[in-house]
């Protein structure tokens, strides 16, 4: 599903974000990527979704080689990924339902199914009563859950969540992680970055990866 071999990422200003990353993630795997702010967690996720490209080494995501100049193929690959961005990236002046449906509109799904899947996803994240609320009227936690619903409603093969517990209190953070875990199945892998290590420890079947100053270390394989 994901295979990184000797991946290094250097930004234009010379900052080395990731060094020689060796990583394999299989379908259905739950992966927690931990590390301090600025350690390289988000850079790793950016590579997985094609927002950045490896400076060295090779990276394959869902069978697609992640190289610069393959925009069209990478755009197609993104349709198979459910991303939850740190800053949510919800579309303003639209309702929660419209935002979730927006993630599916270009997938060739019929409007009836789109609506059905969106309402189901919003219900799963506990927002059935906010379906028609404009996203700017939602609380931080609610907006976070709309972003998750958008990512999962389109039934992706890979869910990537960047700091989904940031700025949330303990109970809300645990709830968000529980929701994300619930979407993992035989075919869908879930990759979550967080710096809140106390929330994720001791999960038997999870893989734990530590990122420190661009170095990636697999602490425990699930």
């Amino acid at each position, binding site marked *: 599903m994901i295979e990184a071999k000797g991946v290094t990422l250097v930004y234009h200003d010379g900052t080395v974000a990731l060094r020689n990353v060796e990583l394999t993630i299989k379908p259905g795997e739950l992966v927690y990527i931990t590390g301090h702010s600025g350690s390289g967690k988000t850079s790793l996720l950016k590579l997985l979704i094609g927002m950045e490209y490896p400076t060295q080494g090779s990276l394959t995501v869902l069978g697609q080689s992640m190289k610069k100049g393959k925009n069209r193929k990478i755009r*197609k690959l993104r349709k198979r990924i459910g991303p939850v961005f740190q800053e949510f990236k919800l579309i303003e002046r639209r309702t929660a339902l419209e935002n979730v449906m927006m993630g599916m509109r270009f997938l060739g799904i019929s409007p009836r199914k789109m609506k059905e899947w969106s309402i189901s996803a919003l219900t799963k994240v506990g927002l059935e009563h906010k379906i028609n609320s404009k996203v700017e009227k939602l609380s931080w936690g609610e907006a976070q859950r709309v972003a998750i619903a958008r990512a999962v409603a389109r039934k992706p093969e890979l869910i990537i969540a960047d700091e989904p517990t940031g700025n949330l209190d303990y109970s809300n953070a645990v709830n968000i992680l529980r929701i994300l875990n619930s979407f993992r199945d035989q075919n869908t892998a879930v990759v979550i970055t967080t710096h809140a290590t106390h929330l994720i420890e001791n999960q038997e079947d999870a893989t734990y990866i530590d990122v420190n100053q661009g170095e990636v270390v697999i602490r425990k394989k699930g």
Partner: protein
Amino acid sequence: MKTFFYNIGYFLLEAKRTIRFNPLSNLFSVIGTGLILFLLGMVLAGWTVGDRLIQTLQSEAEISAYFDDGTNQQDALLLVEKIKGIKGVKNAAYINQNEAKAQMEDMLGNESDILGLFDENPFEAYLDIRINLDDMDQVLSNVRGLAGIDYVRDNRSVLEQMKGMMDGLKVLGLLVILAVGITTLIIISHMIRQGIYNNKNQINTLRLLGAPNGFIGFPFVLAGTVLTMLGGLLAAGTLYLLISKGYGYLGGFLPFLPIPSIGEMRDKVCLILLAVSAVLGLAGSLFGVTSIKNED
């Protein structure tokens, strides 16, 4: 294609949102486009009148060929057939002495009594040749070269002035159309780029979710086309009123001019304006959305 049909409602709604997001700026764009298209409509109307005038004048363009001494009527009729076969000749007719005198009497009207001062008919038989203005030089050279023709009166200066006027009008019209086309394209593409800039966060999110450029750009193309067509409608409406109220005066001032009817003029100009606005709107919008691709 399936995705397109599934999302028609979404595209229309997004286009409406794009238009309503910056209403004042879009209103000014519609008015600006309308004014430019109005100018195009005026040129088209002038062109239509001019075209009709020139067509009439062109059909009247003629030269006269006079015979050598000793050419009889039978020779003259043979010459008529030869001349009819020359490229650029629309028709040729033999005018005998009596017909030539009758024509002059018609032209002189009340003054025709003056012709009574002559003991004999002073007019010669000749050939009346109607020609295509564009082929004037070739026709003149061919007719002059025919055996039995003494000289040709060509009214060259008048005919050349007519031809020059016609060419000038065409060039002027084309320049105005070009200017209007470019200006409209610039206004619309700028408006679309502004819309794209205003929605850059949304566009970026859609990209990250995997939306293709066509899906992202279509609502903007739709908005640009609709706004330009609104400008076209504004221009067509104003011209419709102007032609309905003012066109009759033109016929009153210049009663001898063969101008097109009000209905013909109004329908032609308004339909062309609407069609041109749709084409320019589409082209300008497509040009504008290339900025989405450029940012990829």
